């Protein structure tokens, strides 16, 4: 009795902890530390291997225009493809999630949910083949139309690629690839909107769409942003599909439908790595480091967006 009392006095010592609790806390802490160690290991490897490329004279770097000249178009291509994917996929994914959670009859909703999840299970090389053999040729007439009618916008200046293997096609294939993850996460957060809030909106005389706008979307917004950032992460790092679909030649251009496109970082590494030696390998790794930093920045940005209005998040 006395012993327990002295132990539980505030400030003197911690209360006794059970063995199971200690084991679990240790395991969880270990897992938390492991992820940091792995991340630090990858970062250290990238930095160490990238240093020779960073210090190498400009003419030794492949392309002969220095490291920045080599990596800049790749970064540009990576971001452009990923942003196209995100712009196309996010509204579609949110619409699918809203349809499944609030409009579809229950049975259809379940089936549709499985189908969307199934999209995530298709290997990316299949998307690549599908993009190159099926989607790209079918998009060519559409690109021609864009060039003829909207050619004054630099994005659609053309000349239209005859194969359809353009930045736009790569972005669209990526959009389909990230659709499942964005829509699955949106669906989950939309399902978690408390009935209390949806009923509050309905009882005020909101139509279903107004209820969604008033209660569902604001509540799910941070989840949707989180989901699209995961999707963006996947789009940034996607290698095989882009390698297959995108016809690479040329540098930075906003022209989305021509055959001259910058490569993306990941696709470029996949294409060049087997034939590279010496400083060229270090250059590729430096581009990988750039991708790593971009992904980190995207995640931090997403976190900042989500936390900006934490008071209003509905979590409290």
């Amino acid at each position: 009795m006395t012993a327990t009392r002295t132990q539980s006095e505030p400030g003197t010592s911690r209360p006794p902890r059970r063995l199971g609790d200690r084991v679990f806390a240790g395991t969880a802490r270990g897992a938390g530390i492991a992820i940091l160690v792995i991340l630090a290991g990858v970062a250290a490897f990238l930095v160490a291997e990238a240093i020779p490329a960073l210090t190498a004279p400009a003419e030794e770097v492949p392309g002969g225009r220095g490291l920045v000249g080599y990596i800049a178009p790749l970064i540009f291509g990576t971001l452009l493809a990923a942003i196209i994917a995100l712009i196309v996929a996010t509204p579609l994914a949110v619409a699918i999630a809203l349809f499944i959670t609030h409009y579809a009859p229950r049975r259809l909703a379940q089936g549709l949910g499985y189908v969307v999840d199934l999209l995530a299970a298709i290997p990316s090389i299949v998307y690549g083949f599908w993009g190159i053999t099926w989607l790209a040729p079918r998009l060519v007439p559409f690109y021609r139309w864009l060039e003829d009618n909207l050619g004054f916008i630099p994005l659609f200046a053309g000349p239209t690629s005859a194969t359809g293997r353009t930045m736009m096609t790569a972005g669209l294939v990526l959009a389909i690839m990230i659709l499942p993850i964005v829509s699955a996460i949106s669906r989950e957060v939309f399902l978690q909107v408390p009935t209390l809030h949806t009923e509050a909106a309905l009882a005020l005389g909101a139509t279903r769409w107004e209820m969604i706008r008033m209660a569902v979307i604001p509540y799910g917004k941070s989840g949707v942003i989180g989901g699209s950032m995961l999707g963006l992460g996947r789009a940034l790092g996607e290698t095989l599909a882009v390698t297959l679909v995108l016809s690479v030649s040329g540098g930075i251009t906003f022209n989305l439908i021509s055959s001259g496109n910058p490569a993306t970082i990941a696709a470029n590494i996949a294409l060049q790595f087997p034939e590279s030696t010496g400083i060229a390998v270090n250059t590729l790794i430096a581009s990988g480091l750039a991708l790593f930093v971009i992904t980190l920045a995207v995640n931090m940005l997403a976190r900042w967006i989500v936390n900006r209005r934490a008071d209003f998040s509905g979590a409290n």
Partner: protein
Amino acid sequence: MAKRIDCSDVNIYYGNFLAVEGVTISIEPRSITALIGPSGCGKSTFLRTLNRMHEVIPGARVEGKVVMDGQDLYGSDADPVTVRRQVGMVFQRPNPFPTMSIYENVAAGLRLNGTRTKKAEMDELVESSLRGANLWEEVKDRLDRPGSSLSGGQQQRLCIARAIAIEPDVLLMDEPCSALDPISTLAIEDLMAELKERYTIVIVTHNMQQAARVSESTGFFNLNGIGQPGRLIEFNPTEKIFSNPDQKATEDYISGRFG
């Protein structure tokens, strides 16, 4: 403003399950009608049929007639959205929209259905609604703070302000005080006494003292057993219900001799 509601032979279903059977009741305008009864007897379910919120639940449906000042709420031309704008509702747990500020919460209903209101006019409506809910003095300096930053009792009054902002004819309250402390409860009860000058109020409560304190008429719901439909056993002036009820079951319930 303040309409009467006449229900005749209302049956309420969840899918094939008959939850409430044969309710016939006349709810007077400018008065408070309390519905009491044990848990699961269907009083909340019945309340939700008065603004067509019952049918929000998949498979739920209603038979019978609910007429508000001659307007059949379940007629073939009745739009649930319109009905809900005329019949406001306050829920058991305070449910301000967490993503909106105090101001936006009150303005929420006013912004619906494409209604455009000028800023000055909106400010005025928000203020008068908050005053109407006895909340203005407490929140006037922090209208841009989230609604969820208020205490439970304040949140519930915020919900009342939100409900009366669209000027409904009837106000339904589903155990509005069951999540509140006695002081907040008192504040809500005082508010109800003021609101009944302008609205028809129907309140579901588990607190019989509350029913006795605030209401003019009281309806007692009961059910014969698990799986049986709930029924309106007795509907009379509150005084009579609590002193000399017609039915034995009512007397047993209010005196605590309930099975």
